[in-house]
């Protein structure tokens, strides 16, 4: 055993990984936001009546779910620039966000579609009978109920996205893993550095787990209605 525990502790509590961890969190949140927007739009398209939209969504999912994220990252950063003769030349941050966000969008599309399809048909009929517009029906009736179903799988996506930010080291985004590679390529303490890197990922995952549980609790509350009445006294009829 050549485990340098002193160095491990030192590196773990050093400031080296604070900024990279922030970068990873930032990329996760921003890419997830892009993914949710794309997923919601494409999910609505996938559940619409238009066959053309169905086909487009299918092609999108096939491409972006069927190819490795690593390939997509290099495509957005280098491939696109070469293809357009440097007309489109994305910055590292933009390329990283596009790669992770659009890839996430493909997964979120399936999650949103499943969520929408899980909403009881009677809900749609009630919305129709009340004369609600498509927009109101979706925004106020269907999506809020779809979200409840979508939250648990979305949590898995957040965690996998967080770990996938490590792939951004290929385009030199200073995230956690890239910072680690920079350190061990100088001092060759591969194991200690990778252990610290892993602790950071696990730590961030655990923190997210707490947030996820809160989200799930919150989304279930309005359905079972367990809490909100406690603070509201009975309404006195006007």
């Amino acid at each position, binding site marked *: 055993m050549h485990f340098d525990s002193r160095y491990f502790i030192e590196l773990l509590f050093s400031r080296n990984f604070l900024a990279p961890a922030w970068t990873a969190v930032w990329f996760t949140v921003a890419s997830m936001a892009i993914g949710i927007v794309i997923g919601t739009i494409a999910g609505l398209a996938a559940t619409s009546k238009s066959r053309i939209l169905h086909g487009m969504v299918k092609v999108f999912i096939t491409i972006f779910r069927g190819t490795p994220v690593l390939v997509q990252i290099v495509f957005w950063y280098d491939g696109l620039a070469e293809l357009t003769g440097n007309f489109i030349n994305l910055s590292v941050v933009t390329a990283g966000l596009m790669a992770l966000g659009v890839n996430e969008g493909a997964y979120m599309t399936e999650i949103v579609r499943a969520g929408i399809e899980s909403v009881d048909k009677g809900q749609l009929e009630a919305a129709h009978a009340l*004369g609600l517009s498509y927009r109101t029906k979706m925004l106020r009736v269907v999506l809020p109920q779809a979200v409840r179903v979508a939250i648990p799988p979305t949590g898995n996506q957040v965690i996998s996205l967080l770990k996938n930010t490590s792939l951004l080291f290929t385009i030199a985004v200073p995230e956690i893993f890239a910072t680690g590679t920079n350190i061990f390529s100088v001092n060759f303490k591969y194991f200690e550095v990778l252990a610290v890197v892993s602790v950071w990922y696990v730590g961030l995952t655990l923190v997210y787990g707490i947030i996820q549980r809160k989200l799930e609790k919150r989304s279930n509350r309005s*359905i079972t209605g367990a809490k909100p009445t406690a603070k509201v006294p009975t309404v006195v009829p006007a």
Partner: protein
Amino acid sequence: MGVEEIAGQVTQGSENKKIAISMEKVNKWFGALHVLRDVTITVAEGERVVVCGPSGSGKSTLIRCLNWLETHQQGRIVIDGIELTESPRARDSIRAKIGMVFQSFNLFPHLTILENCTLAPVSVRKMSRKQAEELAMSYLQRVKIADQAKKYPGQLSGGQQQRVAIARALCMEPKIMLFDEPTSALDPEMIKEVLDTMTTLAESGMTMICVTHEMGFARQVADSVIFMDYGEIVETGPPHRMFADPHTERLKTFLSQILHGH
């Protein structure tokens, strides 16, 4: 509102009744299954109609065609002077005139009782939130459930939920109310509270079409009863005549089954 309703009720008999709903030779198929066969009915304003028949007789399909939850393939349906056509405008204006109550309530579970009632008035009728809430509270009081306004549907009993569903439909101030087996999913002890609400509504002069097996309700409230079987209207008439003196063998059989069931 209350005054108008009473006035409407008083003058109802003497007025020349306007036609609220007319269906002429309406046909509908689900694939090869012929679910509505040459259905022709006329419902006057303020008339209360009960539709009954064995399950699969097409009675639910009939009323679902009226607000476009199902589309008919042949024949004419005219609601309050507007023909049901493919045009979305006709569809929307017809839906705005018709309230519907479902067997499974179909309240929005993520919204409070009050929000269930204000959603459509605010988004479709463009009322202010405050106006809509006042309107909703007045209807919730009418169905005797105003004290539950801040709760969620899941916290209410089936009977209470169905009364909320009636209030929600009334908040659109429809001219016509459709009831699709409103008491079929309820425990026996809750059926009465819903029927009482419907009876009160009927007494206010609302045009109603109600698919139900509650023959007591039909006897008490309906102006006419439509009996359907295999997608066609077999017999119609005032409830007392229909129940006391069924002209067709099929109605006779149906009634004996229904009455034995109770």
